[in-house]
């Protein structure tokens, strides 16, 4: 449980980050430190607490999802990482550098080279063609024209928009526009990518396709991705780790399964109740390890419960294999049902 992480494993480290919106944030900060709640501070001073003492460790190469309802402060949180919003208090370390101590010029260099961002409302430049949009970050960075267009073309191809290079953003559908936004961020080849509800404005089917594409890209590129969403299903699908945010404070942080199987409080339990647990839980967390007789059906340990379910129509249990394809255990129908039913109200041991 207590893995010791050195700072070099961490892409982003936030400590006690607090943001209060208003004319005199320091006085409101005092009240907050005295233990008053967000609503109390707002009633007394008229200041809005955006973030309340948020501490997060985001390791390299992860998809880290921050999940929360609207008004939970998740968009405020992600804007602290590239300092589009200045915190009232706290510390933000990215790649070992204190972001808050940067001068304006250093901050610009940091934004150009270290963090790229994808926006919910796309934020494309309507007067530029698709390829010029994708090349925008490189242009700001000062990359020569021929090179940046070549790199932009490559990323347009990667996100599947070949042939649209000379189109205007307005001529594309929402999903295509967000692919441009994604390509624009990827073209910068930064270690960290911030995605602010990047898929929330898209239709469910297109969203699902984009999620798959993001997971693929992450596997091949190994970027650190900080992803914001209000959709718990989306969080479970793509996340290596999830932090749940409410009223600007982190409620729980952990692996997707931990959050589904051991929700920390009422609020998170409410989310879990609504969610497709079969998709969230990996086979490896509920399998029985050991030698069992070989089964005609097998699934890898990284599979989700959802993928196992069809086999139970034929069989009482299904074999589980490791990376090499060797059977290392099994999942039973009983085990799966137990895991799925655990937190359904009034059923099971609760």
């Amino acid at each position: 449980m207590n893995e010791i992480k050195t700072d070099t494993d961490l892409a982003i480290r936030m400590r006690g980050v607090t943001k209060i919106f208003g004319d005199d944030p320091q006085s409101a900060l005092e009240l907050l430190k005295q233990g008053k709640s967000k609503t109390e501070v707002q009633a007394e001073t008229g200041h809005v607490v955006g973030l309340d003492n948020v501490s997060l460790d985001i390791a390299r190469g992860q998809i880290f999802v921050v999940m929360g309802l609207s008004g939970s402060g998740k968009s405020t949180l992600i804007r602290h990482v590239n300092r589009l919003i200045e915190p009232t208090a706290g510390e933000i370390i990215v790649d070992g550098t204190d972001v808050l101590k940067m001068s304006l010029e250093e901050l610009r260099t940091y934004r150009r080279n270290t963090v790229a961002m994808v926006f919910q409302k796309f934020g494309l430049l309507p007067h530029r063609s698709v390829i010029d949009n994708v090349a925008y970050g490189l242009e700001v960075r000062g990359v020569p024209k021929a090179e940046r267009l070549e790199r932009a073309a490559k990323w347009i191809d990667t996100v599947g928009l070949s042939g649209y290079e000379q189109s205007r953003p307005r001529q594309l559908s929402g999903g295509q526009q967000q692919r441009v936004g994604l390509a624009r961020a990827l073209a910068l080849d930064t270690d960290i990518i911030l995605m602010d509800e990047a898929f929330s404005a898209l239709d469910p089917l297109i969203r699902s396709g984009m999620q798959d594409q993001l997971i693929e890209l992450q596997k091949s590129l190994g970027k650190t991705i900080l992803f914001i969403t209000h959709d718990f299903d989306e969080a479970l699908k793509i996340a290596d780790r999830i932090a749940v945010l409410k009223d600007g404070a982190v409620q729980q942080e952990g692996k997707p399964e931990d959050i589904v199987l051991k929700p920390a409080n009422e609020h998170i339990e409410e989310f879990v109740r609504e969610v497709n647990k079969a998709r969230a839980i990996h086979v490896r967390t509920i399998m029985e390890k050991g030698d069992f007789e070989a089964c005609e059906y097998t699934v890898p340990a990284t599979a989700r419960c959802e993928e196992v379910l069809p086999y139970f129509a034929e069989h009482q249990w299904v074999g589980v294999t490791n990376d090499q394809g060797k059977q290392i255990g099994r999942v039973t129908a009983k085990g799966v049902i137990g895991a799925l039913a655990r937190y359904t109200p009034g059923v099971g041991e609760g």
Partner: protein
Amino acid sequence: MFPEIIDTRPWRRAIDDSLNWVVRNWGDEFEAAAYPLLMLLNFIEDVLIATPWWLIMAILVGIAWLATRRWQLPVIVLVSLLFLGVMELWEDAMTTMALMIAATITAIVFSIPLGVWMSRSERVRQVVTPLLDLMQTMPSFVYLIPTVMIFGPGKIPALIATIVYAAPPLVRLTDLGLRSVDPAVMEASRAFGTTPSQRLFGVQIPLSLPTILAGVNQTTMMALAMVVIASMIGAGGLGYQVLQGIGRLEVSRGLFAGLGIVVLAIVFDRITQSFGKQLQAKIGLAETRS
């Protein structure tokens, strides 16, 4: 009768005296400062008058074609210009056009930077907005008289009066255009590490260009509205013809010259508007799925 609370006569005297003092001691300096304006106006006027009429017609018809890519507007422009020629108003029209163009250029040079400044600072906007209101509502004769006293009758006060009257809409629309650029686009640009000037010239100005162009259109129209008043203090052109028509009770002369002003207004209004529409389509603010 409203009771007399204080005696305002000393105030008025102070204002009148100080104006006289300025005229006496600084008149030459003011005239020297305004000399570039006069040069600009004279240059444009000389060029327009020296250019053969058919070349000017060809240029304006060509611009109209570029602005719309249709035949309607070029035909309207051609007919309008032919009207000016047939009615023997060509030279006066060129003089008026020169005044309008000089006023517009000067207004652009001053107004766009001022609009940019306003869009970035709430305080500047609070100071400038009432000034613009004043410039637009103050009857022009009120500031015409001091300008004539300082510069003497002639083209300079006429040009200055035209600029004062015509510049405000351009300042306002520049400010409005820059501020109404989609904040999501501005934020995205910021997130990529742009400098303020990269954002201004790369994002804000291109995206607000249609609005700024609407301001230029307003400025040309308001400059034309001033030509009669400008001709009272020494600017020639169509306005002078109107004035003469009134003075000699020659209704026809006033009517034709007045129609000449209308015709010029139509030509420049339609051309700048079409460029605005074309720009909007290019930026993709208007729906253009062809």
